[in-house]
């Protein structure tokens, strides 16, 4: 919970990690390249006082995550999104096996989502059932650019992926977190294209599709499908830290998102340990649009809109109980814009 100027905010950090990219766990040059790339994102976009050494960044402790999220990070509930990367790291990067013990050890603080890989075909379906039985997650995290042997990725509307999603629906796993990455098959097409999410969201109207990084670097494609598909959400991981390093860009992103998809389908995320939630929450609560013409037609972001983004929207997706004092101040009345309808895609 965060409180400022008499306003209280319930905080759900919908995208966090507890990774191990230590040299001992790193399998090859790709794993080394991956964590270095992550570190550059961290170092480039964090305030100096929140920038770690590369050594610490590779593998941080349970004390670090508890401190950064719950002691100083204002987070009420954090959602661990498992990312396996077993071709890069001996024991995986941050697997459900590594994440889930935190859920059990600290009741009420964490949720953990496992993933599935449609390239495992029939076996993948069995694994999905087993994982659900064991962990009971209401969501899955899918990294479509994950390497697996010769394959450099998959698409959400691949036939085996659709079968896995049918299984999710059957089991009651309703939140599908989709993370696009730079490598995917076929390699000559745009890897960040979210058209597969569009098609899949139409096929599964009862599942929620949370597109991580709000589709960045294809914000426009994400906004386009967000206007078409009411069950598509945007997770702010990676977009949030621009609030410090590139505040005008952050203002444009959040303004565009509110204009196109509206205040009910945007979810706060730090992507911890890429960035720490404390400073992100504080800066977001203070956030106002810069005062110049570029921003003059964006509607004000009220405390209630911030409350929705910081926690209430994610709480609704995951049935997380929110204390009465942190509910909307103007419950029942429309507080912001209604999602718009674009004329034509580019």
């Amino acid at each position, binding site marked *: 919970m965060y409180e400022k100027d008499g306003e209280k905010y319930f905080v759900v950090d919908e995208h966090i990690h507890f990774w191990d990219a230590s040299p001992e766990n790193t399998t090859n040059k790709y794993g080394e390249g991956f964590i270095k790339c992550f570190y550059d994102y961290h170092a480039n976009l964090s305030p100096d006082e929140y920038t770690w050494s590369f050594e610490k960044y590779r593998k941080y402790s349970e004390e670090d995550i508890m401190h950064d999220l719950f002691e100083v990070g204002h987070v009420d509930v954090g959602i661990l999104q498992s990312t396996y990367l077993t071709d890069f790291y001996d024991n995986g990067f941050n697997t459900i096996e590594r994440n889930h013990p935190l859920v059990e050890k600290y009741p009420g603080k964490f949720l953990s989502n496992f993933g599935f890989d449609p390239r495992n075909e029939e076996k993948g379906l069995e694994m999905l059932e087993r994982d659900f039985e064991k962990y009971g997650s209401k969501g899955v995290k899918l990294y479509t650019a994950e390497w697996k042997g010769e394959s450099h990725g998959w698409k959400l509307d691949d036939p085996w992926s659709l079968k896995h999603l049918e299984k999710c629906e059957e089991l009651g796993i309703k939140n599908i977190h989709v993370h696009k990455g730079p490598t995917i098959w076929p390699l000559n097409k*745009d890897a960040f294209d979210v058209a597969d999410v569009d098609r899949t969201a139409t096929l599964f109207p009862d599942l929620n599709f949370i597109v991580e990084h709000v589709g960045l670097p294809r914000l*426009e494609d994400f906004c386009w499908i967000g206007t078409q598909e009411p069950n598509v959400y945007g997770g702010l991981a990676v977009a949030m830290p621009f609030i410090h390093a590139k505040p005008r860009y952050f203002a444009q992103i959040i303004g565009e998102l509110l204009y196109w998809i509206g205040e009910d389908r945007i979810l706060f995320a730090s992507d911890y340990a890429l960035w720490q939630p404390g400073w992100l929450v504080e800066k977001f609560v203070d956030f106002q649009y810069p005062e110049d013409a570029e921003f003059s037609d964006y509607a004000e972001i009220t405390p209630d809109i911030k409350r929705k983004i910081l926690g209430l929207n994610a709480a609704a997706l995951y049935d997380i109980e929110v204390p009465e004092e942190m509910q909307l101040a103007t419950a029942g009345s429309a507080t912001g814009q209604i999602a718009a309808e674009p004329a034509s*895609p*580019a």
Partner: protein
Amino acid sequence: MPTREAVLDALSGVRDPELDEPITDLDFVSGLEIEDGAAFVRLRLPTYFCAPNFAYLMVADAKAAVLSVTGIEQAKVVLDDHYASDEINGGVNEHRGFDGAFPKKTEGDDLEELRTTFRRKSFVSRQEQLCRAMLSDGFTPLDLSGMSLQDVPPSQEFETYLERRAELGLDVGPDAPLVVDPDGHRVPKEAVVQHLRFARTVRVSIEGNASLCRGLLATRYGIPEKEEVKQ
């Protein structure tokens, strides 16, 4: 003997297709040597995992640009520090094409479709930049919808817009309408505002992505973040 300036000038005609800016402004050119009509160029990118298809296009375009300089007979362009450096460098310098560089990893028509997709995005973004400038100069959306290219006051934004428009093969004649979609169809006057509204999202996306990439490159190589150049 061709000068360094001439080769760099040719390289400034190569754009990152995704970021819509010259690779020279983005600081992607990290080395250039010229000897007896042979040029050797080094490129670098913001991350180890930058999409290999765009990386390939930049290496291939850089090689073609360097070879276009009078007096350059041979050119070698290499991309450093990328997970697929070997495949890309081999593919370009040994003329294997993208399909040949990544056998069995592609489908369909090499990289042309991808290039066209991003030329369309660049076009939309540059049109928005031009129209935004014109709107702030006092034109109304209704004015814009009725204008032809010959009615547009000269500006840098207009020049860039015409270049992107010509690249897509669209009409750039004086009578051609100003506001057209990426297929060249005039946008009806009642749809101009919403057309430009979506174009703005495209522009925000491209500009923001470019800004992020500049920052990542600076952090990766420990160099100062290069100023954004308004074209």
